[in-house]
């Protein structure tokens, strides 16, 4: 009998709020968090971005420092570390998890970590080692007092989904009993200029799967999920991780597959492992970056996997593309859909415009949501798919 893997707690930190609940409330109220911002130090022209509120971040972080009686001052921590600590702290709130347990693993997902520390203005403010991704995980390990060496996954835009897949596999494999999976990335001069050089940024808030989509919107944030192979006490409305898969296009390092075959392969393998028929899938949370090629590829993959009628959305219109955090934040939003039986609209979408006919969600509606698929694709040709089921 295969071991069940339960999602026992979660958190989202984004422009829309600092908890899963705050984010869900904002999304249900029809809010989105992408605004035109201008920080002349970091980017020449005004840009639509989704930013975490700095004042709120700092005051909530100080409150956590006070509660936990941590001996370090707030300015010891970088912006990313503050967000990650807040996210994990909130996810741990209200559940009983032994922190110094050798059966507990922390998995960090990030693409660029503290990359802003390479900027001139941060020179000399932090130990130079903090720019290493493992150093971010060590800050978390030390703050909370975890025992095991954290695992760190940095696999472009699939990092978050891949971290969840990895955690569920390690738990099922019997290596650990509990896993805290957290992912975060921040807005930096580095990331903005890079996506601009690719001409991948939309001049207005991104429009996933829309006929007029014209690129992605960058965002920053964190997502945390706590998984356990122990069944939680409240059996009702618990979400289980059923199976996942990772594939590679073997086609191009910065462009998606032309056929969607490899993402479809990941979806098929994940469904097979989960014992879920395509017809039983109630909802797909797609990557949906709103670049012309990504959304086209995804529509082909979804159709190839016989999921053309299944409701699909992209959460990118709410808080942009948050890179290493995206898969985690969107998985938490997906679990909100499951627990509340709500299909969230694809914010930014007016008129669907993709080659394959798929069922992109335009309006937020109530509907039974029991089985779901989360997908993500990224640079380096990587694709991931993860299947969730409600008990």
């Amino acid at each position: 009998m295969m071991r069940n893997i339960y999602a026992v707690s979660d958190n989202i930190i984004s422009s829309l709020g600092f908890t899963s609940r705050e984010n869900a409330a904002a999304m249900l109220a029809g809010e989105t968090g992408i605004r035109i911002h201008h920080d002349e130090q970091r980017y020449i022209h005004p840009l639509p971005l989704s930013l975490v509120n700095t004042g709120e971040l700092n005051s909530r972080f100080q409150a956590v420092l006070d509660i936990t009686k941590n001996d370090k001052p707030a300015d010891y921590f970088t912006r990313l570390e503050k967000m990650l600590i807040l996210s994990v702290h909130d996810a741990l709130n209200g559940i009983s998890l032994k922190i110094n347990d050798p059966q507990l693993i922390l998995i960090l997902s990030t693409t660029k970590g503290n990359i802003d520390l390479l900027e001139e203005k941060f020179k000399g403010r932090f130990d130079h080692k903090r720019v290493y991704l493992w150093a971010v995980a060590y800050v978390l390990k030390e703050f909370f007092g975890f025992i095991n060496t954290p695992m760190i996954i940095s696999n472009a835009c699939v990092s978050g989904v891949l971290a969840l897949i990895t955690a569920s596999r390690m738990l099922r494999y019997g290596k650990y009993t509990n896993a805290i999976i957290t992912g975060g990335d921040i807005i930096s001069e580095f990331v903005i200029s890079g996506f601009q050089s690719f001409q991948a940024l939309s001049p207005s808030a991104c429009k996933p799967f829309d006929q007029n989509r014209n690129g992605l919107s960058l965002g920053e944030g964190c997502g945390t999920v706590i998984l356990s192979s122990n069944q939680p006490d409240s059996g009702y409305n618990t979400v289980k991780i059923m199976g996942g898969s990772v594939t590679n296009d073997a086609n191009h390092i910065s462009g998606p597959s032309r056929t969607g075959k490899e993402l479809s392969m990941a979806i098929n393998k994940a469904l097979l492992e989960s014992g879920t028929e395509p017809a039983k899938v109630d909802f797909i949370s797609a990557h949906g970056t709103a670049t012309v090629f990504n959304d086209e590829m995804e529509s082909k993959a979804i159709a190839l996997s016989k999921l053309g009628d299944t409701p699909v959305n992209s959460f990118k219109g709410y808080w942009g593309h948050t890179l290493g955090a995206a898969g985690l934040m969107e998985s938490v939003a997906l679990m909100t859909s499951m627990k509340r039986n709500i299909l969230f609209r694809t914010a930014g979408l007016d008129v669907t415009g993709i080659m394959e006919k798929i069922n992109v969600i335009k309006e937020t509606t109530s509907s039974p949501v029991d089985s779901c698929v989360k997908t993500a694709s990224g640079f380096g040709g990587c694709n991931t798919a993860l299947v969730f089921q409600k008990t």
Partner: protein
Amino acid sequence: MDKLITSFVYIGEGKVFVNKRLIFYQEKIVTFAEFIKALYKQEQVSYPKFYKMDSLSKLGFMTSELLLRNEIQGRYQADSLAIVLANSSSSLDTDINYQESIRDRSAYFPSPSVFVYTLANIVIGEICIRHGFKGENTFLISEKFNSGQLLDFVSEILDNRRAEACICGWVEILGNQFKAMMALVENDNTILPLNPDFRPLPFSLTAITDLMNVN
């Protein structure tokens, strides 16, 4: 099912070992660029894309070229070969170069062909493109080589038949400091006698730790 290391490559301290045999040695390494170019030339690799790669991808690509000399691709389906690599500094070597290109507004030249390499897993993408591999792929980061994490990760994939073989190891570069190790690990049932001069090793903590200290 038993899992066996059927071949491996080690690159470090100016030396290159393939299955414990020293095949290349540069006594005085001046720069990584010179080292890798000399190795590429000696091994008569012909792959024009190599010249476009950043240092991390060049290092990983050359290591995989030496590892896969025996044309294993015909033996596996495209999606039944996995790649799991790790390092300490992610893509920091290229990140620093990239940041330099945007440091000064009067000399602001962000380049997409540099930016794309500011992700550690691009090296996996390059290897997949070279051989048409479409299977499981993951890039892990750890301060030092973490044999336990790599063993668990790869064992889970092979034990659950997510792949029949896995290329795994370490590809680290920052400036002119570099080290790489890759091992081909295969489920025992699929083994063909490929290397008469190399007896496969059981895939264990001891074995992979030893492979990182071949020199």
